Each structure stands twice: as C-alpha cells, then as structure tokens.
C-alpha cells in the first residue's frame, strides 16, 4: 500500500469518471469540466510514475510533462469555452 499505488488507482478512477462525464454529459460546460477531469487523471499517472520511494528524488521529466499538459489543457479549455459562449450567443440571436 504505497502512495503511488493509491494515487495511481485514484488517477484511473478520476480518468474513468471524467470519461463517463465527457461521453454522457449533455451540458456543454459539464463536458468541458469532464475533459478537464480526464486530464487530471492522466496527470496522476505521470506524477505517480515519477514518484520514487522517499529517499530517492522523483523523476523530473514527467513533472515537466504534466506542467506542459496543464498549460495545454487550459488553452484548450479556454478555446472550448469561447466556442460555447459564441454558440450560445448565436443561438440566442437566432431564436430571438
């Protein structure tokens, strides 16, 4: 029962939950959020992979990758949210 095991499985769970959300959610916002959960799940895997038993220092490369991933994800999220806003406005204009 080491942390990597626990958090690794947590990561799987979070990824799975995010996937369910991404596939099932109807609400656009919720889908974005679900995708973000997926990305956290993926990040867990890398961070866990980098973890070493306490005396050892963790592998820095996956950390760097996760940071990159986070920034990439926020960019994608921003674009998706911009699309959602725009679409909502267009629908409102059409319906009005």
């Amino acid at each position, binding site marked *: 029962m080491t942390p990597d095991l626990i958090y690794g499985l947590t990561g799987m769970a979070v990824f799975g939950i995010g996937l369910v959300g991404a596939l099932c959610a109807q609400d656009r916002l919720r889908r974005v959020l679900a*995708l973000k959960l*997926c*990305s956290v799940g993926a990040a867990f895997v890398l961070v866990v992979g980098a973890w070493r038993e306490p005396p050892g220092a963790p592998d820095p*490369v996956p950390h760097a990758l996760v940071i990159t991933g986070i920034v*990439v994800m926020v960019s994608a999220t921003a674009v*998706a949210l911009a699309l959602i806003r725009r*679409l909502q406005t267009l629908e409102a204009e059409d319906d009005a």
Partner: protein
Amino acid sequence: MTLDLDMMMMAIFLPLFGAIAAFILPRAAALVGLVTLALTTGAVIALGLEVRQSGAVVLPLGGWGAPLGIDLRADGLSVAMLALTSAVGFLVSIAALDALKGADQARERQYFWPLWLLLLTGINGVYLSTDIFNLYVMIEVIALAAVGLTVLSATRAAVQAGLEYMYASILGALLFLMGVGFIYLQIGRLDFTGLMGAEPTAALIAAVALMFVGLALKTALFPLHLWLPAAHANATAPASALLSGLVVKAALYIVLRLAQYMPFPSETLLTLVGLMGAGAVIWGGIQALRAERLKLLVAWSTVAQIGLIFVAFARAGEVGLTESWKAAALLILAHGIAKAAMFLAAGRIKDEIGHDVIRDLDRAPVRPTLAQFTFALAAISLIGLPPSLGFIGKWSLMEGALVAGYWHWVAVTMLGTLLSVAYFSRVLSAFLRFDRIRTPVAEHQGWALADAAPLTLALTAIGLGLMAAPILRFIEIGYPFGAAL
C-alpha cells in the same frame, strides 16, 4: 554568429515566425503568409534533397539526444508528408487570397493567416517528431489552430461543428496523453527508439488502445467520425481544404508511425482496424449519396476515403504490414491533394453559383466551368481511376490484399469505388445538365486566377500517378526506422 540553418528547424520555425509576424502585422498577413509558405516549401525541398542524398537525417535538439532530449528526424515518409503539406498548403494559400477577398471578410482574412501558419507549424512538427509526448503537444497545436479555422466563417452551424470538433480533439488528445503515461510507466522513456524494442506488456497494450482510439477520433475513423462532416462542410473553402486535405493526415501519420515502431498491430487489432475502415467506406459512401449539399458530400467522401486508407493499412494483416504502410501512405498523399482540390473547387462553385445544393446546381445561370472541371479531375483521383495517384494507391492496396489472399478487403475496395462513382456522378451530372434552365447559360468565361490553384492541385493528383515509382522509392528512404538511426 554563424547561423547553421537546419532545414528541419526551418520547416517548423519558419511557419512559427510567419504566424507571429502575421499576427502582429494583420494588414500584411497575406503577404507574410505567402512568403512563409514559399520559404517553407523551399526548406522542405532542400530537406528532401538532403534526405535523398544521405538518407534519413536526425537533429538532436539541444544537443542532448534521445531519450533525454528530443530528436527531430526526417526520412522519406516524413519528407513526403512535409512536401504534401507545403505543396497543398501553398496552393491553398493562393486560393485563399481569392476566397477571402470579400469586403466583409476582413476579419477572416486577418485571422486565417496566423491560424493557418500555426497549423502548419504543428503539422510539420508532427512529421518530424520522434517523441510521443512531443507528438501530443503538436496535435494540440494542430487542434487549436484547426478549430480556429473551422469556425472562421462564424456561422452557427460552423461554431456548433467547431465545438464538437473541439470536444473530439481534446478527448482524442487526452486519450493519447493517457497512453503516453502508460508508456512512461512501462519503459521509462518516450522516444521511438525506446518503443521499438519494447515487449507487449499490459501497460503497453493499454497505451496502444488509448492512443489508437484517440488518434482514430482525431482522424475521424468510422465510427468515431461524427464530428467530421459538419466541421469540414461548414468551414470556409480554404479552411475545409486544409482540414480535409492536411489536418486529418497528421493523426493518420502518427498511426502509421506507431504501427511501425510499437508492438502495436496484432492480427486481431488489424482486422478490427480494417473492419472500421470498411465501415467508413460503406457508411461514408452511403451518406455521401444522401448528402444534399456539395460540401457535405465532399466531407462524407473524406470519411470514406480515410476508411479506405485504414483498409490499405490492414490489407495484408500483420505479416504484410511492412509493405501495407506504403499503400496507405500513397493513399494519404493522393487524398490530401485531391481532397484539397475538391474542397477548393466546391468553394469556388458555391461562390459563383451562390449556393451548393446539389439538386439545384443545374438551375444556375452561371457555370463555373473550370471549377467544375477541377472537381471532376479531383473526383477521378478520389474514385481511383487511372492514372491518378489514387489509382496507384488503390492498386497497391488490392495487390497486397490479393497476394495475402484477403479477398474481403478487395471486395470492400471495389464496393467503395462503386459508391464513390455513384456519389460523384450525382454532382457531375448536375454540372452537365442544361435542360432545366431557360436563360442562356454563361460558361467557359475564360481563366480565373482563383481556379489556378485547385486546378493545379487536381492535375497534380492525376499526374503524380505517373510518378508513383519514384515516390515509392522515396518514401522508403530511412525505412525501417532503426536502420538509419
């Protein structure tokens, strides 16, 4: 300081600088774009000459070298894809000059160029990359730029399609990222070389499943294609041409690469891939037959053609994979060129006639003859009639399948061909029908610059069939991967 201009760096950085320049100088965006494209094309040509002369070339960025650093590598296939990208990109850019010239299109014009140049950066980056995490970042670059291009027209349908595309892109990329995580867990490194010797363990199998589905989602392989038709059909013509001709190819290329370097293709999985491809060929064909609008038809044809590429990939099973990728690569090249030509032509037709409802095309009093001719030529290549490159690709596909005794893939190919004849002939007969219009029809009104680019593309798609042997020899340079590393 002496600059050592490495052509691989140029292929990636030129578009990047171009994008920056186009972004901060909106008024000169078109000029910047064209110059960048020309320079990039030059770089790719130089790179191609280098590769042809000395085989695959490798650039360890930062001097570290894989696995710690990231290597760029150009072999025959990479350069072929780069060449496809620059050639198609250059001609689409020229066409875009005309397609976006409207007075109300100032903003589209302004954003098209930086987005497109960033897209080019991403695509070129994919073709030169040898690191799977780097690939992840690159496909995200592509995804964001492509979504931006998709919604360039800012209509409701386009934005809706763009949003769906965005969801699919993010999910696909995340699946890929998860796969990267598993690969790191298993082998502790992320470069292709590390992958090659790996044993197929559970973690790697999971990685394969995730990455393959993620890429299939990005390349819109049936049944994960649902986002594609709307996205490609509703974008403006040059954007559609880029999306259909180039963007989906990036993910396809990654599949090809991974298939070569990973313990990926078990026979079962290949059969599954082939079945999905067959499904795409049939379903895409049927939907194209039903499509009411020209661009939607073309978009569905993309779904079918991508399916065909996967069939080519799976045509001879695990054993034949060392050859099958060539057939797939030929089809990728053929489709990239021809589909770009076709979307541009469709855009021209829509612009001239004012709509693209197939049923009413023959009621229009103007007939953009050259665009129609271009469309027909592109259709010839997409159907796979000789001597087009599409034909050569189909020939390779069927030949391999026959040799391996996989008759069902031959049957699927033939069915796909018939379907494509059926749906393209719907359009062609609309072009050539004259009895439903009373007023004199204006046609053949001389040459338009706007038609030059699509026509050139279409003629290239046809003519390259004659160059198939050199192309095949070229894409084999540096294969297999390890040999030249």
